[in-house]
C-alpha cells in the first residue's frame, strides 16, 4: 500500500476511459491480435471499474479534472455511486460478451467498434459536462451503428442506416439543448446546473429529453430499435440492449432528478411516466405478434425501457428508494437481456433460423440455451429471487410511500404482460422435436454456457440487492 496505489486510484476515472479507447486504436492497427487484445483489455478494464466501484462504495464519490484544466475550459469527470455502478456493469458485459464475438474476418474493425462503444459509454457515465456527454453520445452512436452493420447483409445495413439517422437527430436535439443551457446558465457542469431554472432552461430540458428519448428508443420513438437489435450479431445485440440504450436513460434520470431543480416540470415528468406506460404496452403487443425469437427479445427491450422511464416521476418524489429500485431493474434487465440474446444467437447459429415454430425440441436438444432463456424470462417477468423482482418490489414500495399507488398497479400489470409474451414465444421449445431431427441433446458450446452464466447474474442480483443499492445511492440525491 502507499503512494503508488493512491496515485493509481486518483487516475482511475480517466483510466477507465483510456483503457478501451487505447484498445480500440490498438485493435485497428493490429487486427490479427484483436481477440487477444480484447481479452487482456477487457480484464484490465473490468478490474479498474470494479476497483472504482469498491472505492466509491467505501469512500464516496470521486472527481477528476482531465489534464489539470479546470472547468469551464477543461472537462471534469465525476464518479458517484450511480456512475460507478453503471461503469462496472458495462465493463462486465462488454468483456464477457466480447469474448464470444466472432467477426466475419479479422480486420473488419469489429473489436475496434466494440471498444470504442465501451469507451464512449464510460465517457457518458463519468462526465460531469453536458457537452462532453454529447461527444460521448455521438461516439457511442457511431460505434453502435458499425456493430449493427457488421454482418454486412442488406437488412443489417438498412437497420444500421435507420439507427444512424435516429441517433444523429437525437444528438442534434441534445446539442441544441446543451447550447441553450450554456448560453443561459454559463456552465455545462451538471453539478453547476442544480438550481437552473427559467424559460431557456425549460426549453433546453425539453430539447435534450426528446433527443435522448429518440436515442434510447422510448415509445413512440422506438421504431429503429427492433431492426437494429434484431439484425446485429448476438453479442452486439446483447450489449446494445443491455447497456447502450441505458446511457440515454441514465442522462434522462440525471436531468430530471439531479439537476435543473428550478424548472417546474412535475406535469412533464408525469407525461414521461405516461410514455413509459405506452412503451410497456406497445412493446408487449409487438412482441406478442413477432415471429422471430430475436425480434421478440428486442420488443421486450422496448417494453422494459418503459419501466425505466416510468420511474422518472417517482425519482422526483420518492428519491433514493426509487433510484435503488430502478437501477436494480436496469441491471437485472441488462443481465437477463444479454443472456437471452446470447442464447438466441446460439440457437440461430445451430439451427440457421430463430423463427418461433422452429424452436420445437429446443429443451431436449439445446438444454443449456433453453435454460438460459428460461432464467432470463424469470428476471424479465420479475419473479423472486431475481433482480427484476427486487427492483420492482422497491419501486412498488416507493410508489406507496408517495401515495402514487397507480404506478404499483402498472408494475404488477407489466409483469403479467411480460410473462404472457415471453411464455408464448418460448412455448414451442417444450414441444417434441420433429421426427426427422435427432432428439438427443447436443453438446453445449461456450456461447450457451456464457449465456446461462450471464442470465444467472440477473438472478444473483436479487440476493445481492443490498450492496448494489448501497453503491448506487452513494453520493446521490437525498
Amino acid at each position, binding site marked *: 500500500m502507499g503512494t503508488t496505489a493512491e496515485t493509481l486510484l486518483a487516475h482511475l476515472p480517466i483510466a477507465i476511459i483510456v483503457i478501451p479507447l487505447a484498445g480500440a486504436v490498438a485493435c485497428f492497427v493490429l487486427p490479427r491480435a484483436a481477440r487477444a487484445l480484447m481479452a487482456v483489455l477487457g480484464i484490465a478494464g473490468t478490474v479498474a471499474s470494479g476497483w472504482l466501484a469498491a472505492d466509491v462504495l467505501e469512500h464516496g464519490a470521486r472527481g477528476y479534472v482531465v489534464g489539470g484544466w479546470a472547468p469551464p475550459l477543461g472537462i471534469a469527470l465525476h464518479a458517484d455511486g450511480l456512475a460507478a455502478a453503471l461503469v462496472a456493469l458495462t465493463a462486465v458485459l462488454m468483456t464477457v460478451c466480447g469474448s464470444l464475438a466472432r467477426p466475419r474476418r479479422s480486420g473488419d474493425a469489429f473489436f475496434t467498434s466494440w471498444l470504442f462503444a465501451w469507451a464512449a459509454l464510460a465517457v457518458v457515465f463519468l462526465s460531469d459536462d453536458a*457537452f462532453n456527454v454529447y461527444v460521448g453520445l*455521438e461516439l457511442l452512436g457511431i460505434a453502435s451503428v458499425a456493430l449493427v*452493420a457488421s454482418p454486412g447483409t*442488406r437488412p443489417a445495413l438498412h437497420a444500421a442506416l435507420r439507427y444512424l*439517422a435516429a441517433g*444523429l*437527430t437525437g444528438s442534434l436535439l441534445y446539442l441544441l439543448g446543451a*447550447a441553450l443551457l450554456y*448560453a443561459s446558465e454559463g456552465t*455545462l457542469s451538471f453539478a453547476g446546473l442544480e438550481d437552473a431554472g427559467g424559460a431557456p432552461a425549460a426549453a433546453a430540458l425539453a430539447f435534450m429529453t426528446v433527443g435522448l428519448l429518440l436515442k434510447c428508443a422510448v415509445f413512440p420513438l422506438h421504431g429503429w430499435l427492433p431492426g437494429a437489435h434484431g439484425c446485429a450479431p448476438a453479442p452486439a445485440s446483447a450489449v446494445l440492449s443491455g447497456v447502450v440504450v441505458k446511457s440515454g436513460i441514465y442522462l434522462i434520470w440525471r436531468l430530471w432528478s439531479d439537476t435543473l431543480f428550478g424548472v417546474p416540470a412535475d406535469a412533464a415528468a408525469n407525461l414521461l411516466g405516461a410514455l413509459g406506460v405506452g412503451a410497456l404496452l406497445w412493446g408487449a403487443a409487438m412482441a406478442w405478434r413477432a415471429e422471430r425469437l430475436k425480434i421478440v427479445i428486442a420488443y421486450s427491450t422496448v417494453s422494459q425501457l418503459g419501466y425505466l422511464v416510468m420511474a422518472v416521476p417517482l425519482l422526483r418524489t420518492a428519491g433514493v428508494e426509487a433510484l435503488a429500485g430502478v437501477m436494480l431493474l436496469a441491471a437485472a434487465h441488462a443481465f437477463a437481456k444479454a443472456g437471452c440474446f446470447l442464447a438466441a444467437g446460439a440457437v440461430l447459429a445451430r439451427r440457421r433460423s430463430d423463427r418461433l415454430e422452429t424452436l420445437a425440441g429446443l429443451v431436449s436438444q439445446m438444454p443449456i440455451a433453453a435454460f438460459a432463456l428460461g432464467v432470463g424470462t424469470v428476471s424479465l417477468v420479475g419473479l423472486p429471487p431475481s433482480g427484476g423482482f427486487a427492483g420492482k418490489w422497491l419501486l412498488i414500495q416507493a410508489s406507496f410511500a408517495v401515495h402514487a399507488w397507480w404506478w404499483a398497479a402498472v408494475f404488477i400489470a407489466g409483469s403479467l404482460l411480460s410473462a404472457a409474451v415471453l411464455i408464448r414465444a418460448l412455448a414451442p421449445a417444450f414441444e417434441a422435436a420433429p421426427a426427422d431431427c435427432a432428439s438427443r441433446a447436443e453438446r453445449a458450446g461456450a456461447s450457451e454456457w456464457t449465456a446461462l452464466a450471464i442470465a444467472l447474474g440477473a438472478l444473483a442480483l436479487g440476493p445481492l440487492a443490498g450492496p448494489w443499492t448501497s453503491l448506487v445511492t452513494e453520493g446521490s440525491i437525498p
Partner: protein
Amino acid sequence: MTSAGFVIYATAGVALIGAGAFGLARARDALRRIVAINVAALGVLTTMVALAARGGGEADPVTHAMVLTGLVVSASATALALALVRRMAHLRGEEDADGHDG
C-alpha cells in the same frame, strides 16, 4: 444588447434547422435523408455561433470550441452514413448482376 450579427446568425440557424427538419420529414431516399440531417446540423451549429455572440463584445471561446467539435463529429457521422449507403448500393448492384446472369 443584441447586435445585428446575433440576429442574422440566429435567424439563419433557425431557418436551416427548419429546412433540415422539413427535408428529413419528406425524404424517402437515404442520401437525401443524410443531406437533410447535415443541413439541420449546420443550423444547430450556426445557432450556437449566434449564442456565442449574444452578449455583444468578445465572442465566447467555449461555445466556439463546442461548434468546432460539433463540426468534426458531424463530418465523421456523415462519412459513416455515406459508407453504409455505398455498401448498400454495391450489394444491390451485385444482386442485379446475379439476376441478369440467372
